[in-house]
């Protein structure tokens, strides 16, 4: 029961956070310098289009009324018209979301698989020469600007060696029946490889360092000592007893990492011309396509908040010590 209660109150809290972020977004785009109508209406729209948008978003009403109309529209998934594409923002964003998610999840899965194994290994070999070299190296990967790493990989593996294409998700003129066909094609993998590797190199530090420090903590606990006393082999102790228990917080950090990664995607997608949410946000802001920028920002914020919630819930559900206090 206490679990359910904790989960419910946490969910409620994050719904309030979402509302606050939506409000900040509203204020940011309405109070920007210049014409307040510019948030939704491009001067090149036809008079009928302009009037329709004026009515839809209540742009001739006072600010507080606009706010409630905005909230109402949001709930219905109505985000306005993109200036550049002349199509609904919601459609555009939903079309780009899968590309961003595929990139994010593929890079994070690689990063976590590597980070967990390497972290466990480094904890096991505590004090060794390998650890002395590896830890500063991992810290260095965390200090790298992701887009710079992308540039270096692009210059070496694409422009010099010619192993991978320089950007995008498909070759010019290639047509696919559906997104699923695209994602399962061999060609797509060559496009995915470099951006995913860039993000993975940056992201592996978090699971690696977490796994290592959790392992070091767990190895000191009584049940591990007990297992040793029972005479179990070193391998059994480390893998069956210590690693399994150290893994839990690392897995909950995965959800947080998805949120962080989505923000990092903004630059990496731009380097690799990856048609995702982050690159769309940058292009929309540069081109003053305010409805699209607002929509892309909102979508990223929703995923970040959702992932924070999932991490919290996982933590309460999986760790027996939380929630019973």
């Amino acid at each position, binding site marked *: 029961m206490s679990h359910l209660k904790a989960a419910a109150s946490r969910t409620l*809290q*994050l719904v*309030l*956070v*979402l509302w*606050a*972020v939506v409000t*900040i977004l509203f204020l*940011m785009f309405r109070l*920007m*310098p210049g014409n307040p109508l510019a948030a939704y209406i491009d001067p090149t729209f036809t008079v009928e289009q302009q009037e329709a948008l004026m009515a839809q978003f209540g742009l001739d009403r006072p600010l507080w009324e606009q706010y409630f109309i905005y909230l109402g529209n949001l709930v219905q998934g109505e985000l306005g018209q993109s200036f550049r594409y002349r199509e609904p923002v919601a459609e555009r964003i939903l079309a780009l979301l899968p590309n961003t998610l595929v990139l994010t999840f593929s890079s994070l899965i690689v990063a976590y698989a590597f980070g967990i194994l390497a972290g466990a290994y480094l904890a096991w070999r505590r004090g060794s020469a390998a650890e002395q070299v590896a830890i*500063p190296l991992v*810290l*260095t990967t*965390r*200090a*790298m*600007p*992701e*887009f*710079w*790493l992308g*540039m*270096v990989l*692009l*210059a070496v593996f*694409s*422009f*010099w060696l010619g192993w991978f294409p320089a950007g995008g998700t498909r070759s010019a003129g290639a047509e696919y029946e559906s997104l699923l066909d695209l994602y399962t094609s061999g060609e797509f993998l060559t496009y995915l490889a470099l951006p995913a590797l860039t993000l993975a190199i940056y992201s592996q530090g978090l699971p690696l360092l977490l796994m290592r*420090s959790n392992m070091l903590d767990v190895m000191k606990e009584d049940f591990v000592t007990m297992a040793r006393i029972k005479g179990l082999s070193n391998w059994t102790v480390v893998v069956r007893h210590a690693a399994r228990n150290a893994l839990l917080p690392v897995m909950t950090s995965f959800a947080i990492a998805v*949120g962080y990664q*989505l*923000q*990092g995607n*903004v*630059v990496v997608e*731009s*380097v690799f011309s990856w048609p995702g949410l*982050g690159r769309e*946000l*940058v292009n929309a*802001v*540069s081109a003053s396509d305010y409805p699209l*920028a607002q929509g*892309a*920002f909102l979508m*990223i*914020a929703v995923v*970040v*908040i959702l992932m*924070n919630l999932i991490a919290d819930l996982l933590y309460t559900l999986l760790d027996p010590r939380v929630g019973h206090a």
Partner: protein
Amino acid sequence: MREVAATRRSPGLLARLFGALKLPLNDPFAVSGLLIYAIFLVTAVFADQIAPYDPTEILYTPEYDLAADLRPGEQGHLLGTTSLGRDVFSQIVHGTRSALLIGVTAAFMVALIGSIVGLVAGYFGGWVDAVLMRLADIAFGIPFLPFVIVLAAFLEPSIWNVVLAMALVLWRDTGRVIRSQVLTLRSRGYVDAARVSGSSDLKIILRHIAPNILPLSFLYGSIAIGWAILTEASISFLGFGDPQSISWGYMLQDAFASQALAKQAYYWFVPPGICIILVVSAGFFITRGYENLLFPKLGK
């Protein structure tokens, strides 16, 4: 004699502040981090003397051709020139200025706001705590880089708007950690003793609690320096940076937009990245030394 004793008992404010920071001078990582900071600081101060050219000057060869895309060493350019005929090495040297300026001001703002929020929330508790921590929740829900991009684009692009955007969001981590530290300090015996003897809240906070969280503030400040420099680089790379200042992020954007990757001009885009890595990891190394000092159990 009495005067000597008096000065010995109360060392100068600066010395006391340094003592309170507890700089981890016995940790080799932390010392190398501090050394990197020192080198960059000296470079930033004497940038005009060190850089052989004005970083924005368009240079010409003795034959009056544009000195564009020179390789390192050609015509005395240590790291070659850009496609516009500007000296790469001079840009690197001048880049230290904006990096340190933005890193230090943003870190100071983040550490200051975070410490004040943490102190107030942790010490007073109750509804003050609840409100401040909900604000921190909101700050955690804002996607940081997109927020900085939108703010930098709406306000005019300048270093200060990037700093402002960072200060508005990044105080959240520092605030939470310092709050939990204050919660444990608040129940210590000497704080009770001060309260019983009639000290005001302000005096207890400033005298008895703030000095104990100063190392934590410094720790989170040095993490924030790295974040700030990385963020500025990303923002400049995306083209929302200050057009007036030469920063490492600007150099990377310039190189990327000028096809330096296809031209294999590594001398142009590798050095700015290395400088960023050095400064940011210097912050991490200092942080690590601090953690060993503040939380000794982790190191054992």
